[in-house]
């Protein structure tokens, strides 16, 4: 394994990203600026059509500067990037392989869209890079709180102080959050940056 085994087994482990030689065409979705990774991948592109969909401005700049001849689409921000991904998948043929690069919030939202378009987990490769900030699903009110960097976070839905657990749902693309002081109201551990 390339990464340390997580304490809770539902937490994803990401392996070094490689092209899938079985793919007929390839879509690389880039939501974080990881220059060494992009350079390595684009130095040896896969056989078949390759499209690079970039939602991170710095990554887009690097890509332009690198002189890569891969077909590149730049979208301004994650939300528009996810829309562009969806349009792409709507007309995609069998044999497409999807590579998702970015923070967990971005890559699991993208994976969720791909699953809705019938792509199987074998056709999608994910790699976490950039911020370790977590999307957190409140198990009490079901609201999603995104970009959580601390062990505790205020729920964007019900306002409860949630403890961010390592338990991860691929379907929701999020970690579980539950009220930290339900047993003793007001008693909370100190807030610490846990996911920089």
């Amino acid at each position, binding site marked *: 394994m390339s990464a340390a085994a997580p304490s*809770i*087994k*539902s*937490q994803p482990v990401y392996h070094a990203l490689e092209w899938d030689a079985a793919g007929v065409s390839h879509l690389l979705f880039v939501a974080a600026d990881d220059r060494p990774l992009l350079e390595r991948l684009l130095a040896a592109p896969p056989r078949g059509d390759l499209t690079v969909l970039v939602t991170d401005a710095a990554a887009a700049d690097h890509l332009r500067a690198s002189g890569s001849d891969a077909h590149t689409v730049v979208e301004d921000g994650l939300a528009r990037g996810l829309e562009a991904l969806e349009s792409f998948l709507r007309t995609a043929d069998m044999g497409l392989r999807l590579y998702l690069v970015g923070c967990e919030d971005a890559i699991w939202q993208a994976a969720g869209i791909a699953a809705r378009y019938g792509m199987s987990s074998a056709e999608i490769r994910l790699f976490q890079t950039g911020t370790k900030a977590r999307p957190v*699903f409140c*198990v*009490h009110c*079901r609201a999603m709180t995104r970009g959580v960097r601390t062990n505790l976070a205020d729920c964007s839905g019900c306002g*409860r102080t949630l403890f961010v*657990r390592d*338990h*991860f*749902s*691929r*379907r*929701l693309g999020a970690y*579980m959050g*539950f*009220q930290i002081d*339900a*047993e*003793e*109201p007001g008693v909370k551990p100190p807030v610490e940056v846990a996911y920089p």
Partner: protein
Amino acid sequence: MAIAFHDETFRNDYTYRNSDEGVRRFPFPFGQDEYMYSVNIEPHAGGAPGSVYEHAFDIDEHYVSECRDRAITLERDPGRCESLPHMIDAEWDVLELIMTSLARDYPDHFRLRQDGTHWHWINLPLGIEQSFVFGDAATLPYPPFEYITRQTQGDFVILDQRDGDLWADSGMITQQADWSLTFDVGMSFKEWHGPVPRAHEIGVFDRALKYLLMLQLGKPVRRLNWTMTVNPRLDTAPETYPEWGQDRASVTPDNVAKKVHLRVELQTLFRLPRSNGVLFSIRGYLASVGDLARYPRWGKRLHRVLRDLPQDLAEYKGLVRYKPTVVAWLSQQDDGAALEVGTHPE
């Protein structure tokens, strides 16, 4: 034999009680003085008359009130019953398995007439009578899995078997020991069991998964699992943790014997015929520590198991806050005498 159903509650005033017979047949899970995870799966092929193992699905004195409590929980949170769209064949499999089992095992309480696909179901304890067409969901007031599990004790998960794994793709979960169906639905076997400490490391889930993938039709299996619950509350879901979390801080030496309950799950697994899925039934039993200690063997053994329980397991099961109070009370019942191996009460 007709069962005398209690009228009792699992919330607010907590009038839940076990009869003497209810305590005697309690599936006490500790055959030895210490506890550790194991696969501990055995055939679910009947058991002693009157025991919880006798029938495929055990119906007891709490049946009517448990179904009522489930209805309250579903009214408050319909998300406790989920079923992914590809599970409809498995839903009918489950309806058939439960209806035919209950009608066969409890003819005084349940009746089923099957005329081709035209079925007629009678549930006397709940006062339900329903004609429907098997395979046509529009002829039932709820989807088939929800319909039948609203009328059965225990929680249920349907596991879909594909890609060499078991996926938790349907569930009726209103009395769980602190796990969330909304969060876990669609997970693989090991993801779903992710939070359980130690068991992964000792290979329990590898072996259990391998075993369950081979589960055969007509050869169900079972195991016991356990935790503890403060108050006889069925709805101890993460969703409602803000409602019941404070109960864990309410245990005192004076109320411990009545307030703290051992909660045992009789887990059974059945292969389903059409869908090739697996029905996972989690049938919970609650008995207060005080009731269990009426059998000295059980009181002593429970004392030793809890006293020596590894801290990470106590944390996972949520016992840390009140376990010392339970152990202190039980220690008064334990003279330290050696106990014969086995779970029997006397």
